[in-house]
């Protein structure tokens, strides 16, 4: 009987598919929902403890919560504008940069309160940044692993926390102020609304600001942390925060979190931007106080369930990936988010250390055998553009300054390279290992195409699908990768590597230089490239950096450690946030995190029948 039902379902489903009705424009529904429901596809939210998030632990889970945290905690705001990054005031109303590019002074917005009523001031920011330092086991590289600050004079330990705890941050005692205003420390306060960052090396605005608008610049309530037992130890964080979310200053606050299930938000009554004028909101949509009282973000891992929720109206907005993308495209009632300037880096990375991908000619052969157009067509639905990395086109002048052409598929050329390398028609080459995470359907699709392409020039590819934990286990810093070169395998897919922070140096640091902390799975290093990347932290002169990059890129082109495939327009490479345009009129996406996160800014959601701000 079940068999009969199944057959009926198949026939029904097929019939349904074949008869997807031509989309008919319907009248907008005037009812405005009171509750906004979003189906989110992100990796399950496993632990709420934001101290883990601050530590960037455990990877990659920390990302999950951060995405919607931008609505709760707010930092600086940045936008891509005409090929450059523009920074807009938010919690910092203005800033001054010293001539040598080493001192940054921020003037903070006055009268801002956290959603629990605690006041926001420079002391809060100070505690938060030294919190990073403490949680990184007093490492100087606490900002994205870069040694930005000279921490030799810093003595931030239990004694300091004890003093702060006694004093409180709203009106610090002289004892506490003496520490927080100590100018021998790289970060110090000057009064309640002024904070100074002194860098060890010159760092152009675009680089340092890019970091502050990233996830380590999100400002939470440090007073709340001190009130509830502090940090704990770096390897044993205060478990209180497993169940209690830090208050923030954003337009929404977190009401409830059910791990792996949903997060409920509601409007923050203490939001400082509640009285902002229309013009101010228009200038920076992220400050919008929000239009709907309550928001629920569901975590749903299955694309089918998200699509069902969207199609049945149980969710207003859902992340739809490649599985159901065709249905979205065929239905005019659905709108979706797409980048104007894509930021995700999609590439096939070749291990430059192990045989045979350590041979440049073999790598060039591979780079010329891959059918890039078919990958764009079949994996990314044609919504992608070719590029030559490491930077993606949204970095404007920092993108491909030498105007080098991306590798093109040319089987003859590829075969010639192989022959020159001494492996005519792949003879003598072992099977190349291509490892992908189990359950990564898009990666699998990508991998099968690459497998077939390389098969055409006689290179056998073995796809291994491993647990995500095992995939990531051998990957780390350049040195770490070198030690685990065999485990990394010959080929790796970057199915959408997004920048960690919004700075042109990000992709360079991650992918190419031997200073890489993560992401250089090709284990590539070259003196020329190192020299060029060093410029990022040595000079504030943009032109000088760009000239160096030109030289480095040419070197990379010839070495071919990576076959750059494309950068996608869809928000999630092979899919995007989709909403029913009969219900939702418009929505903005996080400008701070372009490429980093996938989250819609639900304070900017405007329903059909509602007035735009």
């Amino acid at each position, binding site marked *: *009987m*079940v*068999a009969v*039902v*199944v057959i009926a*379902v198949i026939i*029904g489903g097929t019939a349904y598919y074949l008869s997807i009705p031509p989309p008919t424009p319907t009248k907008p529904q005037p009812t405005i929902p009171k*509750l906004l429901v979003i189906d989110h596809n992100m990796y*399950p939210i*496993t*632990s709420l403890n934001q101290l*883990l998030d601050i*530590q*960037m*632990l*455990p*990877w*990659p889970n920390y990302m999950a919560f951060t995405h919607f945290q931008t609505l709760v905690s707010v930092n600086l705001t940045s936008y891509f504008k005409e090929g450059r990054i523009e920074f807009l005031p938010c919690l910092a109303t203005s800033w001054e940069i010293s001539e040598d590019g080493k001192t940054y002074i921020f003037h903070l917005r006055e009268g801002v309160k956290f959603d629990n009523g605690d006041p926001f001031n420079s002391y809060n920011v100070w505690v938060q940044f030294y919190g990073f330092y403490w949680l*990184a*086991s007093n*490492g100087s*590289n606490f900002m*994205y692993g870069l040694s930005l600050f000279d921490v030799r004079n810093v003595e931030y330990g239990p004694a300091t926390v004890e003093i702060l705890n006694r004093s409180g941050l709203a009106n610090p005692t002289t004892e506490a102020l003496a520490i927080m205003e100590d100018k021998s420390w790289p970060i110090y306060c000057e009064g309640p609304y002024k904070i100074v960052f002194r860098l060890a090396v010159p760092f152009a605005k675009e680089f340092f600001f890019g970091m502050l608008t990233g996830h380590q610049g999100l400002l939470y309530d440090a007073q709340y942390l001190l009130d509830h037992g502090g940090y704990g*130890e*770096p*390897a*044993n*964080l205060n*478990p209180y925060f*497993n169940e209690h979310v830090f208050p923030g200053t954003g337009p929404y606050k977190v009401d409830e979190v*059910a*791990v*792996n*299930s*949903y997060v*409920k938000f509601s409007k923050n009554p203490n939001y400082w931007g509640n009285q902002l004028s229309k013009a101010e909101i228009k200038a920076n949509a992220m400050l919008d106080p929000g239009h709907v009282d309550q928001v*629920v973000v*569901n975590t*749903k*891992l*299955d694309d*089918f*369930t998200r699509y*069902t*929720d969207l*199609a*049945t109206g*149980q969710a207003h907005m859902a992340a739809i990936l490649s599985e159901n993308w065709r249905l979205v495209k065929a239905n005019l009632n659905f709108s979706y988010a797409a980048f104007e300037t894509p930021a995700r880096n999609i590439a096939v990375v070749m291990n430059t250390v192990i045989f045979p991908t350590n041979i440049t000619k073999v790598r060039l052969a591979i780079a010329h055998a891959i059918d890039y157009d078919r990958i764009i067509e079949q994996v990314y639905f044609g919504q992608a553009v070719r590029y030559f990395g490491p930077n993606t086109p949204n970095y404007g002048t920092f993108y491909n300054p030498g105007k080098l052409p991306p590798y093109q598929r040319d089987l003859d050329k590829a075969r010639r390279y192989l022959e020159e390398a001494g492996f005519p028609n792949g003879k003598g080459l072992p099977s190349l290992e291509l490892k992908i995470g189990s*359950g990564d359907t898009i990666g699998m699709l990508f991998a099968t195409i690459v497998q077939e392409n390389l098969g055409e020039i006689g290179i056998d590819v073995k796809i291994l699908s491993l*647990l*995500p*934990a*095992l995939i*990531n*286990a*051998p*990957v*780390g810093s350049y040195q770490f990768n070198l030690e685990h070169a065999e485990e990394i395998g010959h080929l790796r897919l970057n199915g959408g590597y997004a920048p960690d922070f919004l700075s042109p140096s990000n992709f360079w640091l991650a992918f190419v230089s031997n200073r890489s*902390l*993560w992401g250089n799975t090709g284990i590539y290093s070259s003196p020329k490239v190192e020299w060029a990347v060093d410029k990022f932290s040595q000079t504030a002169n943009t032109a000088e950096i760009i000239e160096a990059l030109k030289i480095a890129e040419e070197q990379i082109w010839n070495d071919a450690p990576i076959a750059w495939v494309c950068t996608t327009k869809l928000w999630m490479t092979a899919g995007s946030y989709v909403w029913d345009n009969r219900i939702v009129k418009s929505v903005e996406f996080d400008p701070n995190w372009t490429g980093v996160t996938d989250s819609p800014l639900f304070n900017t959601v405007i329903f059909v029948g509602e007035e735009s701000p």
Partner: protein
Amino acid sequence: MSRLSYVVRRMLLAMFVLFGVALITFTLTHAISANPVVAFLGKAASIHPEIAQAYIERFHLNEPLYIQFWYYIVGVLRGDLGYSWTRGAYVSNVIAQTLPNTLQIVFFALLMTLALGIPLGILSCRYYNRSPDHGIRAFYLAGICSPAFFVALVLLLLFSYFLRVLPTGGIISVEVARPQRVTGFIILDSLLEGNWAALVDTVKHVLMPSMALALGNFGYLVRLLRSSLLEVMQTNYVRTARAKGLSERTVFLKHALRNALVPVVTLAALMTMWLVGSAIFVENIFAYPGVGHYLAQALGNLDYAAILGITLVFTTMIVLVNLVADILYTVLNPAIEL
């Protein structure tokens, strides 16, 4: 042997079994080549080697395996199943939170199994080798022969997508107020609170996962009940009951069914094993936050403590269910001694 000494003996055996399970699972999970700290900390391990070192010391990862096992066993005896990296919490706490959810669907699945299995088993026996019997057989075979994940997928397609009567997953709808956590069983909590909206909603969420489990399960019951009824109907005491002048209905319900249900008790252990095993598939498809869901996540991230803890808890459950089933069997069938 008295019932008490039997229970004590079985408990000792259970201890032995649990120790064996812990040893096997521990050895296996720790035999994985990947460095657990790196698998867990990933990127941060190379950014902050100090943190990685702190974690290694905290979890004794630099000690030899047998020492680690010793720490583990001592911890388990104190009720500490270890620290779950993926959740940033203690395994025992996470299991305490998720196990009621799983038990909820297992309970409903058992209810459905009985509700489907007993009447169909009886019908199957009454219409032995006639078309209703064949029909029922086709139905239950289709159920027990379809993998749980496939049944779940078909149900989802049918009830959520086409009929749109049941939610696609989760444990409670977002617009419904969640009841205060008292017992941990959300349905029971809704009931205790008198929160009808939540009660209806949570039951709706439980229906499909339990249905997926029950469909794969009830067939064993039908099969057993049918053959056991057929056997019982041939027995002499049923003939005696008939000879007494009892109506066929009374004979069947009072004399035959009661006896035929006795072996069903022993099936309970098998069913629990099956249900618990299938929960990992079903809970994942329905995004139902139970232990199976947690296990899948733990497996994907090599969260040793969680894998070990869940295996131990499941084994304990199975051992206990077996014990209860054996005792119940003797209660129901006085002729059998322990």
